[in-house]
């Protein structure tokens, strides 16, 4: 099993403790959570 963990780092840690090959993604909301930018991005189908 090779896992990509997106969100709570806790879950990546628990997998690492079980010797699972896990890569943690430091997720941030797209456009920093800026609603206006997110709307523009979705119009360009880039979300």
């Amino acid at each position, binding site marked *: 099993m090779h896992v990509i963990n*997106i969100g709570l780092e806790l*879950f990546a840690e628990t997998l690492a403790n079980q010797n699972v*090959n896990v890569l943690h993604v*430091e997720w941030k909301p797209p456009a920093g959570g800026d609603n206006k930018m997110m709307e523009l991005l979705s119009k360009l189908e880039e979300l």
Partner: protein
Amino acid sequence: MTTTKSLIKNNTFYDSLTLMRISKNASELKEIIQAVTVMGSEINKRMLDDVGLLTDNIKHATTNDVIISVSGKTNSAVESALEAIEKMLVDVNPPRITESVPRTIEAALERLPDANLALISVPGPFAKLEAEKALKRGLNVMLFSDGVSIADELELKKEAEKKDLLMMGPGCGTAIINGIGLGFANVVQKGQVGIVGAAGTGIQQVTTLIHQKGYGISNAIGTGGRDLSNDIGGIMMHKGIKILENDNDTKVIVLISKPPDPKIERTILEKSYTKPVIFCFIGGEAPEPSRTINAPIIVTVHTLEEAAIAAIALVKKEKWSKIIFSRPMEEVMRIAEREWLKLNPQQKYVRGLYSGGTLCSESFIILSRLLVNVYSNVTRSKFELKDVRNSQKHTCLDMGEEEFTAGRAHPMIDPLLRQQRIVSEAKDQECAVILLDIVLGYGSHIDPAGELVNSIRDAKALCEKEGRYLSIVASVTGTDKDPQGLKNQMDKLISIGVVLMESNAQAARMAALIATRGSTMQNLERS
């Protein structure tokens, strides 16, 4: 008044950037006007002269020497600065190995092209997007996040179905795949019982009880709480069943959920199974399986504990029987009596404070069969608890529900709200028993029992002072192999007078016994 002092370090070389950095740091020291460290070249000496730092004692410095020159408001400040600079020159910076962390799933896949599962726990509004990206790239998905619309869940599951991928969730907190615990999962040994569950802590209770009795789990697949609703149609439940049917390690299949939509339930019951199946639909007035079910053996159970017991019996190819309590009835009654004799006559209510949603649901069902007027925030019936901050009569509270977790971590990780609620329930003069779940395993707090001990002690002391007694009944969902250590956690609770029961169901029954001063004993059969 300005003091300027300089010194030379002979035959010492540092590169100019290091010296510039040191100069910058030194200039920021207290009462320092200017600080410069440079190699003693002609051009540097001219520059020092321009800014008034070329004292006589350094004029003879050469390109092989380091000049340190400082001007400050007081003598002592300048002396300290010179000392500090010398120390900076000596200090070696250990290299910081910082691996850059990917920030997107695309970047992650570049680094880990063999990835086959995405475990996603981003805030609700973004969850569907990330899950979609993962599915599009051929990854199985476990979606812990809540707050995804039904339409989005359906879209995701349909997409996964098309690509023959797992789409566990949204709201899926627990899975065990090939012996690896994903999300909140306990360390359990591998074995022959396979589970598909739309209920996280439900999976946890069943798997830990099976392990404790010496048996094991092949795979536990989570589907998310809404999978068996009409809108979703049980897509993942069906897929999970298919996987377990084809899995050589699985000899017995257990299905866990809250009561499914009748139409969907029928599709589950009317499948063809090649292996024995246990239907554990919590709170189900689940219909007895019709004759159209095609399976070697079918068992319907109504508690998680029963699911574990029945599963083991099926593995051993033995008969199984319901239990009400693990311990002999006289012993149980003795313990209960010891508790209820200390109660005040006005103390009559049970207050269940739960971190696990399924455990809360199970207790709510059991208590509703043993008591009257049991309220909860897990039901939409007339017994829905409208104001979750104020318990009413008997109450079963799922503290993992959104009203408690918005902007906070889940109670299995962050015990604060439950600690506070224990104390506030104790202040209610009519509260007799507080019913708790303690859930161990990966993802949970490192010491959930320890975190509750102080609040429990305070609550009991508060009641004692006011001439009351607070009874605490609990069960621990965990195994000896969990990071928290089952025995260690149990000992902590027992030592402060908590009545520990072997399962969540038994804890609920005990609580009811205590609250009714034993009069509900005759109803235990139907709980």
